[in-house]
C-alpha cells in the first residue's frame, strides 16, 4: 500500500484540498463528460483548493491541447493542466495511467476524480488496486466532512437506486456519473487583482516499468457507419411487443424518417432478433436523444437506466399499466404494429412524400 493522499499530519482541511481530475480526449476536444467531472472536482476542491486537470498525450493529437480546449478547462476552474507523456505511452494503457495519477497525487491530493467512462472506471480501479484504497464508482455528489472523510451519493443499478455512503480514506478515489451531474458553471478567468489568469500548463513524465505497459491498446480508426445509438437525436425503441425480427422494418422506416436510429430492449437481443449493439440499457448503450419513442417496451429498470438522459420519452404500448407508462411523458395505448405504420404514413403525407 502506498502513501497516497495528503497525510493526516499536515491536516489538509476540507476547504484547502488539492484534487486531481482525469480528462479524456473526444475527437479534437475535451470530452463533455470529462468537463462535467472537472466541475464536480472543482466543487470537491472547495473555493481555496487546487484543482489539477490531467490529460494524457496521445499519438496524433498534436498539439495535445489546443487553445480552445485549454480555455474550456480553465473556465471550469482548473488551477492548472498537467499533460502526461512518457516513452512507451503511445496509446491508452490503464495501469500506466493509474501509475502516473498515483505519482501525481502522492502525498498531495485529497481526491482523484474521473468521469465513469470505460477508460475512467478502469483507470480508477487500477489506481485503487495500486494504492489499496477504496474506489467509489458512479458518484453524483460528494462533500468532505473532515480530513480523510467524505459523504457521497453514488448510483447503483445504473442509477435506478441511489446509495448514500461514507468514505474514509487518505485520498478519495471517485468516478463521476457524468450524465447525472450538471454541466459545471464557468468561473471568471480573473485573479484577485482582476487581471486575467494565465493558464498554467505543465508536463509530467511518470516513472514507468515494463509491467505498467503490459496492457496497451492499439486503436483502429474504423468508425462505425451511420448515426451512433449513443449520440442519436432520435431513437425509435422496439421491445418484446414488436413480436419478431421482421417487425422491425416499420421501426427502421420511422427512424429513417426522423433522422434517428433503432434501439432495442434486452429481450430483443437475447431472442436474437437484433444484434446487441442496438441494445439500450444498463448492459447495453446509454442514450441521450431529444426523443425516445419506446414501442412495445415494458420498461424494466435495467432498460430505463439506459435512457435516463432522454429529453422526451413517448411510449406506445398495449398495456396501460406497463412500467414504461409511468416513466414516459406521453403514451399511446395501442399495438405498435398498427400505430407505427400509421404514424409513418401520416409523417409522409405531411411531408408531401406520400407516394
Amino acid at each position: 500500500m502506498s502513501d497516497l493522499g495528503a497525510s493526516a499530519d499536515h491536516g489538509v482541511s476540507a476547504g484547502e484540498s488539492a484534487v486531481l481530475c482525469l480528462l479524456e480526449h473526444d475527437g479534437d476536444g475535451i470530452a463533455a463528460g470529462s468537463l462535467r467531472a472537472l466541475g464536480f472536482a472543482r466543487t470537491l476542491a472547495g473555493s481555496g483548493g487546487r484543482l489539477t486537470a490531467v490529460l494524457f498525450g496521445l499519438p496524433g493529437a498534436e498539439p495535445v491541447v489546443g487553445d480552445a480546449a485549454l480555455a474550456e478547462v480553465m473556465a471550469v476552474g482548473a488551477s492548472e493542466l498537467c499533460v502526461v507523456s512518457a516513452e512507451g505511452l503511445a496509446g491508452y494503457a490503464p495501469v500506466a495511467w493509474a501509475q502516473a495519477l498515483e505519482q501525481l497525487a502522492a502525498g498531495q491530493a485529497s481526491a482523484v476524480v474521473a468521469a465513469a467512462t470505460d477508460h475512467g472506471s478502469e483507470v480508477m480501479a487500477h489506481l485503487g488496486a495500486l494504492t489499496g484504497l477504496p474506489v467509489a464508482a458512479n458518484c453524483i455528489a460528494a462533500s468532505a466532512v473532515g480530513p480523510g472523510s467524505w459523504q457521497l451519493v453514488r448510483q447503483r443499478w445504473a442509477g435506478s437506486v441511489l446509495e448514500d455512503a461514507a468514505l474514509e480514506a487518505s485520498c478519495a478515489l471517485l468516478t463521476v456519473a457524468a450524465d447525472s451531474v450538471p454541466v459545471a458553471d464557468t468561473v471568471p478567468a480573473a485573479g484577485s487583482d482582476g487581471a486575467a489568469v494565465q493558464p498554467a500548463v505543465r508536463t509530467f513524465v511518470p516513472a514507468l516499468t515494463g509491467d505498467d505497459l503490459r496492457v496497451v491498446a492499439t486503436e483502429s480508426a474504423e468508425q462505425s457507419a451511420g448515426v451512433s445509438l449513443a449520440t442519436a437525436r432520435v431513437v425509435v425503441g422496439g421491445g418484446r411487443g414488436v413480436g419478431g425480427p421482421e417487425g422491425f422494418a416499420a421501426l427502421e422506416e420511422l427512424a429513417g424518417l426522423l433522422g434517428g436510429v433503432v434501439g432495442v430492449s434486452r429481450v430483443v437481443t437475447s431472442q436474437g432478433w437484433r444484434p446487441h449493439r442496438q441494445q439500450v440499457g444498463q448492459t447495453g448503450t446509454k442514450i441521450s436523444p431529444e426523443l425516445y419513442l419506446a414501442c412495445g417496451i415494458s420498461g424494466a429498470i435495467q432498460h430505463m437506466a439506459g435512457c435516463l438522459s432522454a429529453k422526451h420519452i413517448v411510449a406506445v404500448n398495449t398495456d396501460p399499466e406497463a412500467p414504461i407508462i409511468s416513466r414516459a411523458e406521453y403514451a399511446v395505448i395501442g399495438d405498435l404494429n398498427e400505430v407505427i405504420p400509421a404514424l409513418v404514413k401520416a409523417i409522409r403525407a405531411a411531408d408531401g412524400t406520400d407516394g
Partner: protein
Amino acid sequence: MDILVCVKRVPMVGGKVVVTADGQDVDTRMSGFTVSPHEECAVEEGVRLTERSGGSVTVLTLGPPEAADQLREMLALGAHRGVLLETDGREWGPVATSAAIAWAVGELGPASFPLMLFGNESADTGGYQVGVRVAHELGRPCVTGIKRLELAGEVLRAGREYRGAQEEFEVALPAVVSVKEGINLPRYPSLPGRLRAKRAEITVLRPQWQADGLRKVGLRVPVSSAQRAQVLGQGTDAVPELVRVLGEIGVLQSAPRANAGADGDGAAA
C-alpha cells in the same frame, strides 16, 4: 485450459425497484435472484473456449449459502465445477471481495487458472473494480469491458469499442479478463445440464470478512423517476396527436425529405 469465472448473485429486478424499510437492501420478497448479465456471458465464453480446446470451467461466487443456486444455474449452462465463498449474508465491498477471491485461488491451486473471467461490473452495486483488483493481487495483466476474445496459444487477443473506435489488446496468459454482455449470446440450459447441475457437488470455502473504507449508509429510489404519461389516445386514432407532439418536440424537422417550404416550424405543423 482450466478457466475460473467469477459471478455475483443479484436481485432479479423488473419494472420497479423497492428498497426495504430499513433502507439497507433492495426488497427481494416478490422477486428472485439471478446472475449479473455480463457474468452470464463470461460463463458462456468460458464454456465455449473449453468446448473448442478442452479444459474446464470453474464458476465461483461469494455470497450466502443460497448463492449455490446461482452456481447451479451456471453449471447448467455447461460450467464443470462450483465454488462458493460462503458469507453470512452481509454486503462485501470490492476490496474485501477481491481479497477473498485471490485467497480462494491460492486455496484451489495458484497455478490452476491461467484465464480468469469476470463481468465488467455487477448489476446491483456496480463497483467496476473486482476483476482489476484480483488481477493486481495475483500479479496478472487485466483487460476490461471486453466484447471480443480470441485465444492464440498463450496469447489472448481482446477487443472492445470505445468512442466509436475499436480498441485491441494483446496479453500473455495468465491473465484476467472482464467481459460485457454482447460478447456472445448465452445458451439456454439444457435438460441434461440442469440434471447434472442439480447433483453437482459444490466446494465451500469461508473467507475472512474485512471492512471497506467505503460504507453504505442507506439506499433510496430517486423520487423524480415516477410520473404518469399523458395518454394521447388509443391505437391509430392517436396518430394525429402523436404527430403534433413529435412536431412540438422538434424532431420532425430532421426528416430528410421535408418540404422545401417548411422551415423551422416543422414540416408536419
